[in-house]
């Protein structure tokens, strides 16, 4: 299974756009927000947690449709399905590879962008923590959505429609943790619930993803 993870990471690095594109998109969204809402520091600092979370969510969404589509087109997915790797493991590794190429860089870059939005200094720790805990769930849910739409020719738009409602709990708890951090409230509860959702998605969705892949490969 590690071989699959390494292969996907290597492909992401070589094909380009794996790491860079999502990050650039994240940056652009965050830069565009002040143009939309005005440059007042106070307002920006108030909405910064939400903007950062929504922007990272959209950036994660951007590369979802490539998780399985390429393997499906060149036949690798069918070969993987007949290989000794369990499809559940394949789903898990795909989600992990997606997280390492998008979620992790986003998490690392977020504080710098928080600076642009004059995020409250107390909130940085919780921004990092909440993204670190929450973005894996975004990748796993997205992998499930990608599996659902893998056989469709124009699945990209449908994928967003399916996945975004599933992102609601993660977004709520993630942004709430940062907001509470910024307001000097206790964000432990939100972080714990966020962790619970991530743990739950990783416990259940690999099975749902594998089932969906089997149906789509039939």
């Amino acid at each position, binding site marked *: 299974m590690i071989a699959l993870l390494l292969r996907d990471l290597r492909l992401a690095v070589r094909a380009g756009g794996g790491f860079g594109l999502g990050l650039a998109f994240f940056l652009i969204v965050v830069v565009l927000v002040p143009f939309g809402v005005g440059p007042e520091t106070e307002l920006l600092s108030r909405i910064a947690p939400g903007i950062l979370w929504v922007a990272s969510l959209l950036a994660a969404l951007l590369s979802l449709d490539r998780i399985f589509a390429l393997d499906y087109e060149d036949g690798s997915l069918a070969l993987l399905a007949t290989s000794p790797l369990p499809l559940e493991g394949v789903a898990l590794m795909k989600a992990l590879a997606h997280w390492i190429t998008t979620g992790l860089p986003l998490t690392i870059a977020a504080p710098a962008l928080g600076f642009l939005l004059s995020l409250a200094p107390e909130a940085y720790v919780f921004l990092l923590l909440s993204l670190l805990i929450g973005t894996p769930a975004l990748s796993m849910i997205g992998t*499930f959505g990608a599996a659902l739409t893998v056989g469709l020719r124009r699945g990209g738009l449908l994928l967003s*429609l*399916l996945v975004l409602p599933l992102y*609601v709990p993660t977004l709520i*708890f993630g942004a709430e943790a940062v907001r509470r951090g910024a307001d000097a409230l206790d964000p432990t509860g939100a972080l714990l619930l966020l962790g619970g*959702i991530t743990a739950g998605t990783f416990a*259940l969705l690999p099975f749902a993803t594998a089932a969906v892949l089997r149906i789509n490969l039939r």
Partner: protein
Amino acid sequence: MSLWEYANPKRFMGWTRPVLPWTFALAGLCLAVGLIWGFFFTPDDFRQGSTVKIIYLHVPAALMAINAWIMMLVASLIWVVRRHHVSALAARAAAPVGVVMTLIALFTGGIWGQPMWGTYWAWDPRLTSFLILFLFYLGYIALWEAIEDPDTAADLTSVLCMVGSIFAILSRYAVLFWNQGLHQGASLSLDAEENVADVFWFPLLVCIAGFVLLFIALVLMRTRTEIRVRRMRALEARMRRA
């Protein structure tokens, strides 16, 4: 004879044909009685005035918006476990009805909210949950429409329905957490049942019965249509191969 035999498409078409007009008639009767009773023969609420009477549309619609999803979930489970075609098609047939119920609940809620809270829309936990439910319905319907092979579509939408149900419940609690976090619990509440007296309660029950019957009638009718579509496709496929 087992109950499941009624789920055979041919048998289903058979027994629903006489049942369907009666269901529609009964639904119409209940709705007419309930709405007329509710609108014209109940006193105005001492606090809310006559605006309270919109509960006769709002509450049953909201109830059915959720029940429709639960029915889809049950039908999806039956399809996955027992692979009865009618079950999958009934789930598909229920989704648009559920969407319309959700929309009715949202719109009547807005109309009610305007005189009560001075706004058509607030990010109240209940209102927000219904908006999210609406999005879940849209995704479910879109997935059905996107997949050509009917069995694959039934399988995939069933999985989506099950996973979606879990996330819908999660969202419900997340939204409660989120809004309390914002407003420290001072949010608007939609608990209409809280102080509903019997005078309002009985016509409301009749209306709810009417909505349930209407839902059943619409789902039966749409399922019949879906079965006919499948039958036509099957016949066409045979003709092409012959």
